[in-house]
C-alpha cells in the first residue's frame, strides 16, 4: 500500500517525472531487494525532472556513530545508493521522521549540497490517517465514566512497562486494554 497521500502524489507527478516509487517496508529486512531495484533505474544520465519517491514511515533502529544517532535502515539506504553511484538529488523522501534532515546531511556530507534528497515531513500518511474515514462526531460528555483510557496493541517493552504501572490504578478510573500481538 502506498502511504503517500493521493494529493501529494498527484502534485509530485505533475511537477516531476517519477521514475520509481519505493517504500522502506519493501526492503528494510533485505537490502538486496533495494540493490536490485536501484540497479533497475540506474542510467548514465537522468533527465532534469527525474525523481524517485521514497516512503520512510516505519520506525528505524538507532546506533550512535560519532556521538550522533543514525538509523540503521537509513544508513543502509544511502550506503547502497553510494555503492551504485545513484545521484541523491533524485530522491524525494516522504517521511514522518521529523528532523531526519540532520541524519541525511551527515550521511551525505561528501556529496555536493545540490545533490541531496528533497524531504517531505508529515504524520498524515495513508497508514496513519484517512480523511475519508473521519466523521465529525458531536462533542458530548454525558457518557463519560472513566478518567482515562490506555490501549496497547503490538507488544513492546515500553507498553509492558506502562501496563505494569497503570495496572495499579483503580479500574473504576482507567480503562486498560491490550492485544496479544508480539514483536
Amino acid at each position: 500500500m502506498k502511504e503517500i497521500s493521493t494529493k501529494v502524489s498527484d502534485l509530485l507527478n505533475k511537477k516531476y517525472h517519477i521514475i520509481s516509487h519505493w517504500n522502506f517496508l519493501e526492503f528494510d529486512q533485505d537490502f538486496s531487494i533495494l540493490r536490485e531495484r536501484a540497479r533497475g533505474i540506474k542510467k548514465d544520465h537522468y533527465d532534469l525532472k527525474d525523481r524517485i519517491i521514497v516512503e520512510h514511515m516505519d520506525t528505524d533502529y538507532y546506533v550512535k556513530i560519532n556521538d550522533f544517532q543514525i538509523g540503521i535502515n537509513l544508513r543502509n539506504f544511502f550506503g547502497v545508493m553510494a555503492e551504485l553511484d545513484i545521484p541523491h538529488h533524485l530522491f524525494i523522501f516522504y517521511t514522518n521522521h521529523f528532523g531526519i534532515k540532520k541524519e541525511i546531511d551527515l550521511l551525505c556530507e561528501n556529496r555536493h549540497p545540490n545533490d541531496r534528497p528533497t524531504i517531505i515531513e508529515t504524520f498524515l500518511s495513508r497508514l496513519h490517517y484517512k480523511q475519508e474515514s473521519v466523521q465529525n462526531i458531536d462533542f458530548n460528555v454525558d457518557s463519560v465514566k472513566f478518567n482515562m483510557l490506555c490501549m496497547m496493541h503490538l507488544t513492546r517493552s515500553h507498553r509492558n512497562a506502562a501496563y505494569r504501572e497503570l495496572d495499579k490504578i483503580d479500574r473504576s478510573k482507567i480503562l486498560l486494554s491490550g492485544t496479544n500481538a508480539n514483536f
Partner: protein
Amino acid sequence: MPIFNVLSLDPFIRVNDAFVMDHSIDARPIEFPIRPSIIDSEPNSKETRYQADFYQYIACDLVVETVLDYPYPYISEKTLRPILCKRMFLILGPVGVLSLLRNKGFYTFNDIIDESYDNISDPSDRFRAVISEAEKFCSRPLQEIVQYLEHSHSKFEHNFYTLTNLQELELLDLEKSLK
C-alpha cells in the same frame, strides 16, 4: 566502488528498548489480551483505527505511541485518534511530540496536566513523569474532569478542525516549496 556492507537489523532489533536495560523499570512481558467489555472491538481494527464509539466513555486517552526511546517525535494514528474523537490526550512517546503538535496548531492540555514530560530527554525519566501524570489525573474526581471537558469544548473542536484541514495546508506549503 566496493560492495557496501549492509548492517543486519537482527542484532539491533531491541536497540530502541535500551531504556529498560538498566532494569529500573519493570518491562517484563504481559499476558495479553486484556480487554474490558466496554471496549467492544479490537483497539486497532478497521472500525476503531481512527475513531471508536467507546471514546464517549472516557475523558483522556493515554497514548502509548509506537516508540518511546527515539530521536524524533513520532506520531501515528494512536495520537490522532483522541483528536478525532474530541478528547484529551497524554502521550507516552518520544521527546517533543507535544511540541510538534503545538507547532502544527493543536492545543494540548497544560492547564490541567503537567506537560513538562515532553521536554525530558531521558526516556526512563520521561516514562516516570508520564505515569506520574496519569496517576494524578486518575486521582481527580470525575465530575471535575467532565467540567474541564465542557469548559474546553472549543479546544476539542479546534483540534478536530486543525487535523482535518492539515493535509490541505501541508499541500499548499509543499506547492510553494517546490516552485
